[in-house]
């Protein structure tokens, strides 16, 4: 019961922001390029500016909607990078367990874990300059070892099972066994991990754009809205509170959804959490 509740609430929260991001592609209340100094610093509830305006007179609601788009796009692409590279690596490492590939994958993982994603981002931006693309790469690189580890761990426990032996005796090779027997049985793990990395990606993107290493102006992003609001925090606290709430609610929604999915897909884990 609790499971369903957390799944539905989480999906509703995350879905709300995903919907806002989608709508922003075709319509926003006030275009975010529109600067109107006359309308600057309007409080929440002003007619025409539901959530108020910032110091340039831009509509906060519209900026939050477009910001959702930036956050979600960066996080999804970063998860995509993690899955695209991490899952095959993890499968390969498990198939050749104890071998050279396994060793290289594990040591490579340790290395990437030694570089927190922010440090990777710093290195990349120091060389190529800050941009949304570089933020995606920086977060994505950090996702690779996460997915590789989860995949390898799940696959290793499956490789000890007799049905894998049976498939080997039926003459199937490692690649075929990985695709036919391993991957479908660890899909649950990957879906849950994907949700978690998605929410971590949103947090990381917010952090990077807060320090100016993410999406560059004029593309609105939640992190930069927070950075810009900081000096005005005592005059206009809503400028700082609203984007923060957007981040918290999205991440909370994704985490609840992840917990719910894990319980739904894997009853064995239910008691542990």
């Amino acid at each position, binding site marked *: 019961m609790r499971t369903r509740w957390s799944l539905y609430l989480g999906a509703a929260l995350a879905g709300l922001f995903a919907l806002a991001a989608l709508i922003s592609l075709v319509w926003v209340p006030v275009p975010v390029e529109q600067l109107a100094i006359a309308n600057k610093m309007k409080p929440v509830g002003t007619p025409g500016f539901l959530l108020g305006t910032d110091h340039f007179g831009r509509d906060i609601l519209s900026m939050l909607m477009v910001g959702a788009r930036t956050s979600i796009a960066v996080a999804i692409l970063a998860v995509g990078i993690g899955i695209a590279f991490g899952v095959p690596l993890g499968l390969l490492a498990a198939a050749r367990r104890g071998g050279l590939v396994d060793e290289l994958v594990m040591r490579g993982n*340790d*290395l990437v*874990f*030694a*570089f*927190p*994603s*922010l*440090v990777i981002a*710093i*290195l*990349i*931006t*120091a*060389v190529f300059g800050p941009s949304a693309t570089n933020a995606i790469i920086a977060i994505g690189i950090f996702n690779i070892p996460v997915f590789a580890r989860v995949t390898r761990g799940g696959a290793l426990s499956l490789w000890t099972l007799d049905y894998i032996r049976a498939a080997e005796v039926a003459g199937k090779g490692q690649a075929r066994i990985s695709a036919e027997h391993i991957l479908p049985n660890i899909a649950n793990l990957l879906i849950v991990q994907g949700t978690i990395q998605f*929410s971590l990606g949103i*947090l990381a993107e*917010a*952090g990077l754009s*807060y*320090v*100016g290493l993410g999406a560059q102006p004029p593309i609105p992003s939640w992190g930069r809205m*927070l950075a810009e*609001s*900081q000096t005005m*925090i*005592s005059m206009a*606290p809503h400028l*700082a*509170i609203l*984007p*923060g709430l957007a*981040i*918290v*609610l999205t*991440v*909370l929604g994704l*985490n*609840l959804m992840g917990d719910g999915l894990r319980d739904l897909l894997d009853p064995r884990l239910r*008691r*542990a*959490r």
Partner: protein
Amino acid sequence: MLRYAASRLVSLILSLVVASLVIFAVLEIIPGDAASFMLGMNAAPDTLAALREQLGLNGSLLSRYLVWVTGMLQGDFGTSYTYRTPVSELIAARMEVSVPLTLYALVLSTAIALPVGLLAAARQGKATDLAVMGTTQLGVAVPNFWFAMILVLIFAVNLRWLPSGGFPGWEKGIWVNVKALTLPAVALALPQASILARVMRSSVLETLTQDYVRTARAKGLNRTQAVLRHAFRNALIPVLTILGLQFSFLLAGAIIIENVFFLPGLGRLIFQGITQRDLIVVKSVVMLLVGAVILVNFLVDLAYALVDPRLRRRA
């Protein structure tokens, strides 16, 4: 035990070597070379040549790497191009802020998370547990820099209990500096503590299902005694792993938090380095951060052996 420690030490050194190679390689693929990158397009040829000389860009790839590494080993990180001072002095000054901040946050996070996680596990399904799970679920979702801003809004702007930013320096006494670092440390620690408490809880619950806990109960231990005497120490093993990872998150978090509170730490230094294209500073600070993370993971490996006798005899 000694053999285990020695093998971890070898892998520590290997990791450091590989990390330094990666950082060196990334900075080698800069379009043009480091000197023209740092000076921009309109640099005068002789300035460029002088900088190339200073950076040692005229040597071979191998000799440049060796010069960099041997320099670092002797505490020589080169000279900052913008500050015109040795990078090692800059780093030393900034570490006076960053190291205490990270440790403060780590201690705070661990001191809160372990008892809370243990308590929630002991009261599984009860109101305490639900409250802990709810709060930590929220805590995990909060970006630390935003939490920092909210803390500033409440405790500095409204209540005026603590300063909203800045760092007086250790020569002004310990207390003012602790006060200055308290909000940043809390902002860093609480989201991390949420994660750690959840890991602690699920790890304890997992060990509670193990056969040896049943054995302990059959001996006459009650549930609490079984948790404290048997589940706790076994549950620490996965918690240690997370603790090691958290250090790297705290370090990265500290870089951002320093911006919220205008703290003159390594984070500020690295961002100034980036805006001023001072690659010498960026390279050195990144290497230092990565080195710290690798070192902490080495310490975590040693801690494993203290907790788990099965590792002590393994090579």
